[in-house]
């Protein structure tokens, strides 16, 4: 029979990653959307890298970075007694990197599609950049925000390559559902694999369905 821990772990990882990326991506996308210079172009390239790099490559370099034999890992181990490989925290970092473009791109796209005059109007009325972001810009790109959330969540649920490299498959800590499916297949337990897959698909479809429904409601209010 299948265990429930991998399912909960996957949902936990996907939710936390989505929340973290939401708060990370907004200021980043905002910064990139302002007048272009070379740094912003470089930032855009870096943000898009996880799209292009195979997840196992990302995972592998994270494995090296996390190792106590190398400077970053050594620093964490020595001063904070933290080992990121084989930990949920390590998976979280991996997921945030892996799904970064899925949150940043929709938000960036939404921001750049807004007329520039909206921002100018807000500034001319005495509002700061931050006030403008929260009161004018974000409320007017709600569909983009939702897209980012949905894509990030769904993408993280399916994350495999990165977790495979740095997770260590530890029960209750890093054995997410995608790895569990893989293991069952490797062990030739196709029945179990199917059950895991069915549960994952079922949960994902439900969540996505609910999110898209609420997006439709938002769209209806916006444009007339």
């Amino acid at each position: 029979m299948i265990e429930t821990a991998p399912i909960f772990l996957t949902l936990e990882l996907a939710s936390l990653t989505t929340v973290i990326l939401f708060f990370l991506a907004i200021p980043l996308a905002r910064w990139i959307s302002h007048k272009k210079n070379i740094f912003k172009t470089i930032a855009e390239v870096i943000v898009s890298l996880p799209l292009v790099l195979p997840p196992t490559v990302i995972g592998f370099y994270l494995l090296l970075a996390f190792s106590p034999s190398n400077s970053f890992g050594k620093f964490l181990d020595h001063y904070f007694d933290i080992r990121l490989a084989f930990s949920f925290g390590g998976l979280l970092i991996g997921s945030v990197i892996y799904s970064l473009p899925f949150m940043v791109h929709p938000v960036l796209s939404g921001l750049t599609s807004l007329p520039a005059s909206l921002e100018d109007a807000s500034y001319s009325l005495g509002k700061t950049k931050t006030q403008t972001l929260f009161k004018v810009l974000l409320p007017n790109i709600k569909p983009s925000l939702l897209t980012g959330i949905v894509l990030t969540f769904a993408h993280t649920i399916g994350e495999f390559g990165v977790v495979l490299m740095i997770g260590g498959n530890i029960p209750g800590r890093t054995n997410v559902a995608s790895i569990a499916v893989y293991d069952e297949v490797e062990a030739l337990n196709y029945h179990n694999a199917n059950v895991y897959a069915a549960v994952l698909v079922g949960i994902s479809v439900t969540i996505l369905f609910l999110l898209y429904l609420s997006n439709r409601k938002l769209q209806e209010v916006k444009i007339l």
Partner: protein
Amino acid sequence: MTHFSLQKKLHSAEGPLSLDVNCDIEDGAFISLYGPSGAGKTSLLRMLAGLMPPDSGMIKVKDEIWFDSEKKINIIPQQRLTGFVFQDYALFPNMNVEQNILYALGKNDSKKIIDELLDVTGLGGLRDKRIQMLSGGQQQRVALARAVARKPKLLLLDEPLSAIDNEMRANLQQTLLSIHAQYNVTAIIVSHDINEIVKLTSKTIHLQNGVVRQYQPPTEIFLNQFDEPGSMKGVFLSAEKAANEYEALILTGEQVIKISCSENDAKDLQKGDEIVLSFKGATAFLRKL
């Protein structure tokens, strides 16, 4: 008194343009900014609002220095008390009419002015409406109300009525006048409509190739320079013989008029020719421009 002297290198569609503008505006005056497209009018407004940095120069509004390149002063737009009406209105889609105007006010400002503004602009019954549901003219009035809500030191209007139809335009011009009178703001309007400029403003900056050609009352700038007294420009449409004379149809401004003229005047004219129409007593004279 508002004084500005600004220089900036702009890149227009026709190539680089050096903007160099110098101007003094009396407090409470309503002046216009007129010139061909690409002359730098919008850029000038943006520099006054603090949305675009000039290369050099100075802006002083009622004893406040907003910009001084030598003293390295550049007050950010949030701290310049300006009102800006954009060409696309820039109303916030996520707010209704009242909220858009409310947005302009700070926490400590009285909300009473909102009622006042809705009244002056005739938007009273629309305060709860989302702005997507408004007509162009109504949106324009919201944009105006919002820009004026803080009783700004400088009101900047960038071709606010260019997208409005003629009937509504007269209406809105009236609203502009009322607002200006009520709040006595110093205002600069960019317009291509000579009608509007002459009706609303006391002085016009004629901007061409980045420099001020003239800064005069519009009645002088747009006074026609024809020798014949009381003459006007028109477009010849047609002429027909009728008894001893010719009856001609002339387009003047937005009206078509029928006049009697001599065969001599009419014979060489073709439809579309620009002409000068003048009267001596009851007799009409036409000559090609």
